[in-house]
C-alpha cells in the first residue's frame, strides 16, 4: 500500500527525514514509533501528499503523491496530530460537513463508523471544542472514516488521551483493520507498539528498524536487568558510571540496566551495588520490551556514528 524508498526531506536548516525507507502492506496495522520531533508528522504529510520532498521515491497504492495527489486524496483518511475539526460546529455538523465534501452521506458508510459513533452520539449536539480529549479523537476518527478510505493515516491519535480511551481507541483500530482498511498510526508511546503488526522505529529523521514488535525485541541481544534500591537517584548515576554497564534508564520504579558482556549475571550487579553502599537492592533478569529495544538501537546508532 505504501512504498517509501530513500526519502529525504529537508527544511531550511534541519533534515527532517534522512534516507527513510519503509513499506506498508495492504490491510496491515503499521505503527510508526518515535519520540516528539523524530519526523513522524513530516512522514505522514509526505505520504498524504501535503508536503513535497527533496529526494527518494514515494508511492501510495501505486500513485505518486507529487503528480497524482488528487487520486491519493480521494482514497486516504488522514487524521492530523493536532485536533483539526471545527470547534464551533457540533459533532453532527462536523460529520455532515466531512461526508458532504467527500460526496457521500453519513447513512451510506454508517456501518464503518457505527461502533465509534455510538460512543459519542449522546453528545452529538455539543460543539466539538467542548468535548474531552478522548471524544475529540473519536470524532476526528469518524470524520476521517466517513468516506470509507482504503488507507487510514493517523498521526498520534492517542496523544493527550486518557488511559482508558487509549485502550478503546486501539480496540477500534483492530476492528477497522478487520474490515480491510490499511492503517498507519504513529505514537510516542512505546507500550502501544506491541499492538501493531509491524512497527518502524524512527529517531531524528532516521528509521532504526522495521519489523514486527517481536522481531524488534529479538534484536536486543544483551542481558537486561530491572534494578531497584532505596536511593533511586544515586542508583542510576552509579550504574551509569559502571564500565560493565552499557546503559541504565529509569523505567517506572525500576532502572533498566543493559550489560556489555553477554555472560553478566544478577549476582555481579548486586555485588557492585553493595560495594557502592546501596540498601534494599533487588535485581531481576527480565526480557526486553519495545522501549528497551528502542533505547538499545538508539545507543548502537550513536556508537556507530
Amino acid at each position, binding site marked *: 500500500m505504501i512504498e517509501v524508498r530513500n526519502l529525504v526531506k529537508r527544511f531550511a536548516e534541519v533534515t527532517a527525514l534522512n534516507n527513510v525507507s519503509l513499506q506498508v502492506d495492504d490491510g496491515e496495522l503499521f505503527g510508526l514509533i518515535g519520540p516528539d520531533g523524530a519526523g513522524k508528522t513530516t512522514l505522514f504529510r509526505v505520504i498524504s501528499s*501535503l508536503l513535497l520532498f527533496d529526494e527518494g521515491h514515494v508511492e501510495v497504492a501505486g500513485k505518486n503523491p507529487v503528480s497524482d495527489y488528487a487520486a491519493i486524496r480521494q482514497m486516504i483518511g488522514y487524521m492530523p496530530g493536532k485536533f483539526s475539526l471545527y470547534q464551533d460546529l457540533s459533532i453532527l*455538523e462536523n460529520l455532515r460537513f466531512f461526508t458532504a465534501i467527500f460526496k457521500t452521506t453519513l447513512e451510506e458508510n454508517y456501518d464503518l463508523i457505527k461502533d465509534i459513533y455510538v460512543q459519542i452520539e449522546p453528545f452529538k449536539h455539543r460543539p466539538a471544542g467542548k468535548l474531552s480529549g478522548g471524544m475529540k479523537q473519536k470524532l476526528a476518527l469518524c470524520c476521517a472514516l466517513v468516506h470509507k478510505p482504503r488507507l487510514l493515516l493517523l498521526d498520534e491519535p492517542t496523544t493527550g488521551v486518557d488511559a482508558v480511551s487509549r485502550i478503546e481507541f486501539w480496540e477500534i483500530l483492530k476492528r477497522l483493520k478487520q474490515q480491510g482498511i490499511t492503517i498507519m498510526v504513529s505514537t510516542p508511546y512505546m507500550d502501544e507498539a506491541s499492538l501493531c503488526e509491524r512497527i518502524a522505529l524512527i529517531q531524528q529523521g532516521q528509521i532504526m528498524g522495521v519489523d514486527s514488535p517481536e522481531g524488534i525485541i529479538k534484536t536486543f541481544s544483551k542481558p537486561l536487568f530491572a534494578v531497584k534500591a532505596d536511593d533511586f537517584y544515586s542508583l542510576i548515576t552509579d550504574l551509569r558510571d559502571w564500565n560493565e554497564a552499557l546503559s541504565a534508564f529509569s523505567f517506572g520504579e525500576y532502572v533498566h540496566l543493559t550489560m556489555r558482556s553477554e555472560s553478566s549475571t544478577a549476582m555481579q550487579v548486586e555485588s557492585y551495588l553493595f560495594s557502592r553502599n546501596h540498601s534494599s537492592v533487588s535485581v531481576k533478569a527480565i526480557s526486553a520490551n519495545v522501549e528497551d529495544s528502542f533505547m538499545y538501537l538508539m545507543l548502537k546508532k550513536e556508537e556507530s556514528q
Partner: protein
Amino acid sequence: MKAFIKKEVYHIFRDYRSMLILFGMPVVQVLIFGFAITNEIKDARLAVLDHSHDEMSQRLISKIASSGYFLIDRRLESANQIEQVFREGKVKQVLVIPSSFGHDFTSQHQTSVQIIGDASDPNTANLLKNYTAAILQSFQMEELGKLAFPIEVKVEPLMFYNPELSSVYLFVPGTIAVILMLVSAMMTSISIAREKEMGTMEVLLVSPLKPFQIIVGKVVPYVVLSFVNALMILALGAWVFEVPILGNLAFLLAEVLLFIIMSLSLGIFISTVSPTQQVAMLLSMFVLMLPTILLSGFVFPIENMPVVLQWFSHLMPSKWFIIIVRDVMLRGSGIAYLWKETLIIVCMTVFFVFLSIRNFNIRLA
C-alpha cells in the same frame, strides 16, 4: 459546496464578535461619520468687543446671533481680554467693532470691523471667518438698501449636486467603501487564515475539494453579507441623512457588487500570504483600512495631496469606487460617464483573483 457554505454561515453566526463587526460596525460608522465628523459648524462661540455701542452695532450683533452659526458667548470690555478668552478655549472667534461704527457707516458708507480667529484649529477658524464675512455682506446689503444705494452687484452662489454643502453626502459613499473593505476583505482573509491556524486547512487540503471550491465556499456567505451591509448603509443614508440617490439604483447596486467581489479577491490574496489570523488582521488593517480611509479621497481631498500620494491614491480601489458611488448618487451619472472607473475596478479584480489562484497552496508550506 453547499455544505461548505452552510458551514461557513455557522461560523459567522456563532461568533458574536464577527456578528458585531458585520452588523454593528456599518450602523455605528455611518452614524459617527454622519453626525460627528461633519465639516459644518453650528453654534460656534463668539465674543464681541463692541467699542461703539450704537444702534447699528446692536443690529449687526443680533443678526450674527440669529444666523444659527454663532452663539454670542460674552461681550468683552477691552482688547486685553481677547487673548484670555481664547486661552479658555471655548470662544472660537472675536468680533471687534470700532468706536465710530454706526457713524462711519451712515455718513461715509464705509466702515470696518475686525475678525480675530483662533487658528489653532485652522479649518474651523477659516470656516468661521467665511461665515462672518457672508453675514457681514448681507448685513451691508440690507442696511444700504434702506439708504437706496444706486447700483449693487449681488453674488448668489449656487452649489450644484449638494446645494447645502452637506458633508454627509460625502460620507455615505466613503463609508460604503470602508465597510465593504472591512467585511469583505478583512473577514474573509481572517476566516481563511483561521483554517490554517486551527489546522483545519490541512484536512480540507487532503480532501478531494479543489482550491476554487474552498475559496468559493468561503466567499459566497460574505458576498451576501456585504451586500446586505451596503443596502443598510444606503438605507441609513437615505432615511436618516436624506442623501438622495439620483442615479439608477440597479446600476449602483451592480457597482457595489463589483466592488464586493474586488474586496473579496483582495481578502483571499491577503490570506494566501498570511499564516495566522493576526497577520491577516494586521495586513488588512494597514494595507486596506488605513489607505482606504486616508488616501481614497474619503476624508482628505486627493487634489490637495502631494503628487506622490496622488499616485498612490490611484492604486486604491476604493478611490474609484467612491467616485462611482458619489457620481451615481449625487449626479445621477450612468455607465456612459463611469465606464473608465468601472473598468479599473474590473481589472483590479481580475488581477487579485489571478494572484490568489497562483498563490493558493495545494500543499502545506
